[in-house]
């Protein structure tokens, strides 16, 4: 079993383990809640380990893995939307996302509050801006790599990055994120 036709399964597994923490954070960002993030990440790992997603070596392994996670999360979102539609269930994703974050703000008071504020501010940004900021600031990817993960041109990614960063600063400075 191999992920790219040449790399042994053990090596691929080692790469996944090395990226696991980052991968979970990115999956968590792409999904509505923790449970969904775990589903998405598990599905991604299975795709890679079973060779259904092949690493072509055109980007760094982590960048490629993030792109696979983003695609898998989008598939899950589509399925969830249709499932909710069938069950006549309507929900505000942003509300759930914020509520989840606020619940998670634990005892570590000051830092947790600052992080919660950041989360709330991020939640008010458009999805693309939120994605690029997450990739650049949280995962420390370059804007070019972020563009690869988001499947957009580098120019588009730069635009989202600049606008998102400016908006985030304003929100954090004025406390409008509340």
């Amino acid at each position: 079993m191999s992920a790219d036709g040449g790399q042994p399964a053990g090596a691929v597994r080692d790469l996944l383990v090395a990226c696991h923490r980052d991968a979970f954070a990115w999956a968590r960002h792409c999904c509505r809640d923790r449970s969904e993030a775990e589903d998405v990440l598990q599905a991604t790992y299975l795709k890679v380990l079973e060779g259904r997603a092949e690493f072509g070596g055109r980007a760094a392994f982590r960048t490629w893995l993030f792109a696979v996670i983003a695609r898998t999360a989008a598939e899950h979102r589509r399925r969830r939307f249709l499932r909710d539609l069938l069950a006549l269930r309507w929900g505000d994703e942003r509300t759930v996302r914020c509520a989840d974050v606020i619940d998670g703000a634990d005892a570590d008071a000051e830092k947790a509050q600052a992080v919660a504020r950041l989360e709330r501010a991020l939640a008010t940004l458009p999805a693309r801006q939120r994605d690029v900021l997450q990739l650049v600031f949280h995962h420390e990817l370059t804007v070019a790599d972020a563009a690869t993960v988001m499947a957009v041109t580098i120019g588009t990614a730069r635009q989202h990055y600049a606008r998102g960063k400016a908006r985030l600063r304003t929100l954090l400075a004025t406390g409008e994120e509340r």
Partner: protein
Amino acid sequence: MSGDQREVRADDDAALRALFRARRERVAAQTPSFEALLSRPHGNARARRGGAAWRLAAAAAAIAGAVLLVRGVPRHAPRAADVAVALPAIRLPSDALLAATPLPSAAGDWSSLPSAVLGRAPVDLASSRTR
């Protein structure tokens, strides 16, 4: 929001990065282990319920389709005789013209037509030539 919290506001990339770093530490602490994640049952209960809902919806759609197919489509095409019976009932707009201007041909009286002369007895051409 208190004053010291204002201090952590992002005035430059470094401040933003510091905020994100704190967030990263918090998320990292909640990360499940690789093995635990991979060995958990595939998909959660919600997804399985979703799968069941899909199957139920597909079955319902199939039944509805079958009922429509059986009841909605005519069992046979209309017979030619039925169509022929229906044709005389058709009245064209030009039928009114025939009714308003009774032509001799319509009345069956051909004598008034210019071509009625063709129906007379032929002139005896031989006798007229000898005279």
